[in-house]
């Protein structure tokens, strides 16, 4: 009888993180078995709930002292990486959206026409502050990116939640959902909320260079566009500045003539994956962010047969290739880590 119960408790304990199970599993099992009556065959529901709570708490907060240093859990580190990368992509895209407003409306916050479907199935253009803000507020992701870089995570959480709520409103079509990057906003916000404890720390050392680079590119393009919008619009599209401008706008990536953006972005994603080769955390985070960025467009185009007027098959295929490539890199990194762990794990005595 107790063997059956022990097996069931062991199965239940699998919900705990591996590192926690390795250090505490037998001790927990002992306490659970001592507390169980002679006739008990199944774990008590409230006991299972308390273990689920322990599992959640262990995953969401720092794993605790480890050799005198506070170590973040793998979950927290991955959430941190997703928050950092997602905020970077959204910051570049958001700044670009604001530049677009400035280029075509010449001033910010004056109203942006958005097509709305009438009940009789005809379309009208509406100008409203709300629709304008949908173009301009995403630029605040640059501030969120800066906040997580310097380690002010509480402020970043509040702003990210605000951006998510705002992005989820006033969506008229499925294509709007993709254009407004709702999936990426949701994934990034969730990651910002879940990176807690030791994972919610500022960026240090060599990582400050790419972080500063993202901010510099975004601010640089914004400053160039604001300085002389007309020259900017009429300038040679092959100029570096114009190309960077296209790279920043995620919505442009699906249009064939800006496929260069896709190539450059793929290169950035792959560099991040290679840099993080020592651990699957960064490849995994990059894959999640890439899927959240392109996923809704690719799935919408190929699976749901959504109609994007500004999207061609070529761009969607490229996006699918980026996500697939990153997924392969992540799987290889996970397999490599598992093999490395096996080779260093001590064999049981006796």
């Amino acid at each position, binding site marked *: 009888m107790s063997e059956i119960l022990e097996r069931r408790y062991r199965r239940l304990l699998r919900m705990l993180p591996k590192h926690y199970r390795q250090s505490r599993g*037998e001790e927990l099992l002992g306490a659970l078995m001592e507390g169980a009556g002679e006739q008990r065959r199944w774990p008590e529901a409230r006991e299972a709930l308390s273990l689920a709570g322990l599992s959640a708490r262990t995953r969401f907060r720092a794993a605790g002292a480890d050799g005198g240093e506070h170590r973040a859990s793998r979950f927290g580190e991955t959430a941190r990486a997703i928050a950092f990368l997602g905020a970077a992509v959204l910051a570049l895209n958001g700044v670009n959206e604001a530049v677009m407003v400035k280029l075509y409306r010449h001033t910010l916050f004056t109203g942006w026409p958005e097509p709305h479907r009438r009940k009789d199935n005809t379309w009208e253009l509406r100008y409203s502050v709300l629709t304008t803000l949908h173009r301009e507020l995403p630029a605040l992701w640059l501030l969120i990116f800066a906040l997580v870089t310097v380690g002010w995570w509480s402020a970043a959480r509040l702003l990210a939640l605000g951006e998510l709520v705002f992005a989820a409103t006033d969506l008229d079509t499925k294509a709007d959902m993709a254009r407004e990057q709702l999936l990426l906003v949701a994934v990034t916000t969730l990651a910002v909320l879940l990176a807690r404890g030791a994972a919610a720390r500022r960026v240090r050392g060599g990582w400050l260079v790419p972080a500063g680079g993202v901010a510099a590119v975004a601010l640089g393009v914004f400053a160039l566009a604001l300085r002389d919008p007309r020259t900017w619009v009429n300038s040679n599209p092959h100029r570096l500045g114009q190309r960077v401008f296209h790279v920043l706008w995620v919505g442009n990536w699906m249009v064939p003539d800006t496929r260069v953006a896709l190539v450059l972005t793929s290169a950035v994603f792959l560099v991040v994956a290679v840099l993080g080769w020592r651990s699957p955390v960064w490849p995994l985070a990059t894959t999640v962010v890439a899927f959240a960025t392109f996923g809704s467009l690719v799935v919408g185009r190929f699976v749901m047969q959504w109609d994007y007027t500004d999207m061609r098959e070529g761009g969607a295929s490229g996006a699918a290739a980026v996500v697939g490539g990153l997924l392969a890199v992540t799987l290889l990194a996970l397999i490599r880590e598992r093999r490395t762990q096996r080779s260093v794990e001590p064999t049981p005595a006796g």
Partner: protein
Amino acid sequence: MSSSSSRTEQTFQILTALVDGPLHGYGIIQEVGRLSDGRTQLRVGTLYGALDRLSGEGLLVLDREETVSGRLRRYYRLTDAGARVLAEEAERLSRQASVALERLRRRGTIQRAPRGGMA
């Protein structure tokens, strides 16, 4: 002791259970049940979450390990810092209880304690 660091009832009971000496996980669960007259039934997940936190704060330490009937037992001991925190918390609760009792006496809800022993 600041209000921000005031303890929950369960934490208070776990620290109290360890005053008399080190106990292992299930021992703490039993002792907390006795201290609360069976009102508090700690679950293993809840207990170990609290033990992790209290160990991290330096209020408890691992005392020793034993294997009994093939099961691993780890005994936890209250540290001096843990005893100090518990004492401060007990005094805080005692003061609060005194204030509540005094006000209830003034209201007449409970009888004033008789002077000079039994009447």
